[in-house]
C-alpha cells in the first residue's frame, strides 16, 4: 500500500476523453431525433417512390415508373407542370417580402411615442395562424361581398374573381402569403438595424452620404446577416407553401393553384388520394429542389465562417 494508490494510475476512459466526448453527448439527443425523424424518412420516401401503394394493401415495385409518369405530366402540361410552374412563381414573388420587410423596418426604426405598438401591429400577421390569414384573404377576394371588389367598384372597375380565375389565383394566394412573410422579414431587419454601428453612419455622413447612397453603401452591407436569413426563410417558405392553398382554394379552380407540396398531399393523403408512391416521388422532386438551395446556403455559410 503506497500513497500513490490514492491517485489511480489508470484513469477511467471516460475521464480521459471527457473533453472530446462531452460535445457529442450534448449533441446526441438532437442527432438521434434528426436521424430518426428527418434523415431516415428522406430515404424511406425515396424508397417508397419506387413502389405503387395505396397506403393499405400490398406494395408493388414499379421502378422509376412514378417518375416517368411525372415526366409525362410535365410534357402534357398537366398537374405536375402546373405545380412546378406555380412553385417557381411562388419562389420569385415571395422574395418581394424581403424589400418590403426592409422598407417597413427602416420606417419603424425610429423613436416616437408608441412605436412599440406600431411594431407589434406590423408584426401581428406573422403571429396569427396561416389558416386565419387564408380565411381573411378568401373573404377579401370574395366576388360577392369581398372588400376588394367593393373597393374596385369605387373606382369604377368591374368585379374580378381572383380565386376563381386560373390566371390570377396564384398571384392572389402569394399576396396573402406576403402579408405574414413581410412581417417576418421586417422583424429580422429590425433586429439587424439595432446592430448597425452608429460610428460608421457618422463617418458616412461626414463623407456626404445620405438617402439612397447611405442605405446602399453603409446600412445594407451591415445588414448582410439579416438579409441572408431573410432570404433563407423566404425561399424555404415559398417552397413549402401549403396551408394557404389548402385553405383558400384547395388547389382549384380545376387544379390551377396547386404547388408541389399540395399536389403531393392531394395524390397521397387527401380524400381521393391513394397513391403513396406517386406522392413520394413528388416529395423527392421537391426535396431535390430544396436541396439545391440548402446546399447553396450551407456552402455560403461555410465560406463565410472560413473567411473570418
Amino acid at each position, binding site marked *: 500500500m503506497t500513497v500513490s494508490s490514492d491517485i489511480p494510475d489508470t484513469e477511467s476512459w471516460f475521464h480521459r476523453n471527457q473533453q472530446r466526448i462531452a460535445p457529442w453527448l450534448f449533441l446526441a439527443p438532437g442527432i438521434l431525433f434528426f436521424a430518426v425523424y428527418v434523415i431516415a424518412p428522406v430515404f424511406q420516401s425515396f424508397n417508397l417512390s419506387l413502389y405503387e401503394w395505396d397506403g393499405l394493401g400490398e406494395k408493388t415495385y414499379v421502378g422509376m415508373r412514378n417518375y416517368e409518369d411525372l415526366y409525362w405530366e410535365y410534357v402534357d402540361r398537366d398537374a405536375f407542370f402546373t405545380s412546378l410552374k406555380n412553385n417557381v412563381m411562388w419562389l420569385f414573388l415571395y422574395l418581394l417580402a424581403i424589400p418590403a420587410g426592409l422598407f417597413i423596418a427602416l420606417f419603424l426604426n425610429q423613436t416616437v411615442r408608441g412605436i412599440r405598438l406600431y411594431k407589434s401591429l406590423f408584426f401581428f400577421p406573422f403571429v396569427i395562424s396561416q389558416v386565419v390569414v387564408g380565411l381573411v384573404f378568401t373573404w377579401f377576394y370574395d366576388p360577392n361581398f369581398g372588400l376588394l371588389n367593393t373597393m374596385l367598384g369605387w373606382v369604377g372597375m368591374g368585379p374580378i*374573381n381572383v380565386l376563381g380565375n386560373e390566371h390570377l389565383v396564384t398571384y392572389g394566394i402569394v399576396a396573402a402569403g406576403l402579408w405574414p412573410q413581410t412581417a417576418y422579414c421586417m422583424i429580422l431587419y429590425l433586429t439587424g438595424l439595432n446592430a448597425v454601428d452608429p460610428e460608421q453612419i457618422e463617418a458616412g455622413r461626414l463623407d456626404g452620404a445620405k438617402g439612397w447612397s447611405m442605405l446602399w453603401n453603409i446600412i445594407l452591407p451591415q445588414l448582410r446577416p439579416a438579409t441572408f436569413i431573410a432570404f433563407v426563410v423566404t425561399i424555404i417558405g415559398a417552397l413549402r407553401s401549403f396551408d394557404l392553398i389548402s385553405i383558400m382554394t384547395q388547389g382549384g379552380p*380545376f387544379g390551377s393553384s396547386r404547388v408541389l407540396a399540395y399536389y403531393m398531399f392531394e395524390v397521397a393523403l387527401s380524400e381521393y388520394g391513394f*397513391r403513396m408512391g406517386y406522392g413520394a416521388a413528388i416529395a423527392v422532386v421537391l426535396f431535390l429542389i430544396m436541396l439545391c438551395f440548402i446546399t447553396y446556403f450551407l456552402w455560403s455559410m461555410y465560406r463565410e465562417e472560413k473567411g473570418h
Partner: protein
Amino acid sequence: MLSKMKTTAAAVAVASAFAVPASAELTGDLNIFLDTSNPAPRATMEAMIDRFKAEHPGLNVETTVIDREAYKTQIRNFLTANAPDVATWYAANRMRPYVEAGLFEDVSDLYAEPEIAEGLASTKGALTIDDKQWGVAYTYYQWGVYYRKDIFAELGLSEPTNWAEEKANCGKIVASGRACYTIGTKYLWTAGGWFDYLNMRTNGFDFHMDLAAGNVSWEDDRVKQTFMNWKELIDMGGFIADHQTYSWQEALPFMVNGEAASYLMGNFAVAPLREAGLTDDQLDFYQFPVINPEVALSEDAPTDTFHIPANAKNKEAAREFLRFATSPAEQTIINNGKNLGQLPVNAASSVDDDKFLQMGFEMLSNNSTGGVAQFWDRDAPAEMAKVSMEGFQEFMVKPDQMDKILAKLERARGRIYK
C-alpha cells in the same frame, strides 16, 4: 297518420322482442367512430346510441365523433392502427379500398338473418363486393331539383318533365335576370351530381356505370352528347357566375335571395334552406327531367353506412349494434324530420310525413326503374372521381375547352384502370 303510428308501434314491439334475448349477454367495451359531426345528425346518433346503451347495460359504449371532412382522411389510419368496433362510411366503390385491403369485416352472416335479408334488401347491392356484404346502410337520401315555387309562379312556369321544357323554363328565368341554378363547385363534387344526372338521362344507367368502371372512352360520342347537353345550359347563362369559388353552403344564399331559381342537390339542402327562411310554399322539388326518352329514369341516392373494422375487438357487440341501428323502429326514428330528415333503409320502417321525404321516397320507389346510383365520387374509383370532377368544374367555367378536357380524362382513364 294513424296507420303510420301503428306501424311504428308494431315495429318497436318487434324490435324489442328480438333485442331482449341478446341484451343480457353483451359485455365489454364498444367503440363507435362517427363522422356525423353536424349538430343535428350528431344529436340523432348520440340519442340512438343512448337507446342502445339502455338495452345493454352491461356494455360500456364509447362514442367518438370526428369532423366529417377530416374523417375521410383519418379512416385509413384508424382502421389499421386503432380500430373502433363500429365506423361510419359510404357504400359502393367508396368502401372498395378498405374491403380489398381486408380492413372491413365480412358481415354477410347478418344478411342471412331473415329480418335483415327482408328489411335491407334494397341497399344490399350497394354494400356488396365480391358477393359478400361489408356493412349495413343506415340512411339514404334522394337527389333532385329543389326550386323556388314562388319564382316559378311569378314567371308562369311549371315543373319541367323533359329537356325542351327545362331549357324553355331556364330561358325565361335567365330573361328575368336570375340564374336557373345555383351551384358551388369549389369542392368539386357538386359538379359530379350534375354529370351524374346529365349522363344518366342522356345515356342511361348502364352506360353511366360502364363509364364509372372505366369500360368506355371519355372521347366516345355518347359522352360528348352529355357534355353538349350540359353546354346548352351553361351557354344560356343557366348557372350562377363564379361558382368555382363557392362551397355548396355558400351557394345557398343565391337561392334564398331569389337570385337563382333552383338547386340540383341532395335532400340535406332542405334543412339549411328552411332555416334561411324559405317556407314549404316557396320551396318545392321535381325529379330531374327526361332528356333521352329511350332510357329509363335512374336516380342518385347516396347511402351512408356502418361497418365493422376487421381489427375490431368486440365484433359480437358491434353486430348487435348494426342490427339495432337498422331495425325498423330505430330507422323510423333516426330518419324522421326531427332527426336526420332522410330516408330509412329498412323496408318495414315508415317514412316521415315531410313533403320532400315523401316525394323522394315515391320517386325512388316508383320512378327510378333504370337503377339507383350512389354518386359519382362513390361509384367511380377515387382517383378517377377526383380527376373527372376537376374536369367537370373546368368545363363549367370554360365549356369551349370540352375536347381538351375529355382528352385529359381519357388519358387519366388509361392510367387509372389497369
